[in-house]
């Protein structure tokens, strides 16, 4: 009878353990961002796309259940970052998809110290209509951080171009751009957009008459260099 009691106790404890409410970053070594995604208008998705701007890097990640099975909202996931020194600014735009159709987007951001775990909550809302491949500040036709410039990818999550150090300028009827700030550019010099001239932070411009001309898109981003030195593509 004593043996029976011991087995019953073990089974009870195992069942209680099944009510797992651990966070998606629990037990993870290193920097980890838990992402909680919900929506008042979307019930189910089968893929979550995440546009992730971390430090000067940018990429789009996708996550889904095995077999692409549909999953009801809310959902949790996590973004884990390789070790790097210093604080890491992370901007995330999430897009929930079902059968390839983008149902909603939302955004949030956080700053993580080394080995820090943090949580962001993203609420998905139906995406506004943006013009494919055009540039928008976050919140202007695309979900995102208002101080970050994004490129519209119709039917998919918008892609971050980069943070705007001096803010993002909305240009009705034209591409939005990162503000160049108060200092003028030097005639003939090369600058990344948002550094002394208005533009896209992943494009290199030549300064002419105080504005950027001859834009050259940088595949791996644009590096702002110290004063007196031309900026350049990575």
């Amino acid at each position, binding site marked *: *009878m004593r043996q*029976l*009691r011991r087995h*019953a106790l073990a*089974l*009870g404890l*195992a*069942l*209680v353990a*099944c*009510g*797992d*409410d651990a966070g*998606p970053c629990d037990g*993870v070594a290193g920097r980890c961002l838990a992402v*909680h995604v919900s929506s008042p208008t979307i*019930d*189910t998705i089968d893929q*979550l796309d*995440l546009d*992730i701007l*971390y430090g000067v*890097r940018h*990429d*789009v*990640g*996708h*996550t*889904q*259940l095995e*077999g*692409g099975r*549909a*999953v*009801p909202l*809310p*959902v*949790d*996931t*996590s*973004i*884990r*970052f*390789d070790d790097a020194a210093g604080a890491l600014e992370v901007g995330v735009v999430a897009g929930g998809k*079902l*059968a*390839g*159709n983008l*149902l909603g987007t939302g955004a949030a951001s956080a700053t993580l110290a080394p080995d820090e775990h943090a949580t962001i909550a993203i609420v998905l809302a139906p995406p506004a209509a943006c013009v494919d491949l055009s540039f928008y500040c976050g919140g202007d036709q695309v979900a995102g951080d208002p101080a970050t410039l994004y490129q519209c990818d119709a039917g998919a999550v918008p892609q971050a171009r980069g943070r705007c150090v001096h803010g993002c300028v909305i240009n009705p009827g034209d591409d939005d751009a990162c503000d160049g700030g108060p200092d003028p550019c030097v005639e003939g010099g090369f600058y990344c957009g948002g550094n002394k001239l208005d533009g896209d932070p992943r494009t290199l411009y030549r300064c002419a008459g105080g504005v950027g001309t001859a834009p050259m898109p940088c595949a791996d981003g644009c590096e702002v260099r110290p004063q007196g030195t031309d900026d350049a593509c990575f």
Partner: protein
Amino acid sequence: MRHRGNASSPAVAAVMTIAVVLLALAPAARGDDAEARALEHLDRGVAAFQAGEYTRAHREFRAAHELVPDRANPYRWLALTEMQLGDCARAVPNIAEFERRVAAADPRLAELVRLRVLCEREHATPPRPPSAPAPAPRRRLTQRAWFWPTVAGVTAVVAGGVVLGFALAGDDVSRLPPIQCGGTGCAP
């Protein structure tokens, strides 16, 4: 004096020509009607699918398919819906029908082929282990002294565990696999 009209007069010939043309066009008109109705079913099915109402979506796609059985798209939607309903057995033939009707470069194919592979993987049955020899007849399980107390104990523990599990679980949140970001980008 004008002659009474007969079959060979131009007016009668024109009327007969129009009648013949109308008769010839009638099947085409019926076909257009079927197409239009199929499109309505398809639209309703897609809306239901996106709302997660897969049973209703399937009914609409089935109706669309019956109206235009040669069209590829209803097969695709039927297959996608059947996957959501966990019915691989019905989805796979519909994927095959869709494949037969579209070009190899059709961008919609990749997703369906991936689903078919998943179906085939999930339904691959492992080989049966060799059967063990039949055990010798023994006393009935329910006649053993420990049986009923054990059943009662296990039942109580399971019920308690389930109740506690629900109470502790609270907000039921699904978990998606993590994404790892490093120097070369992000990957699941």
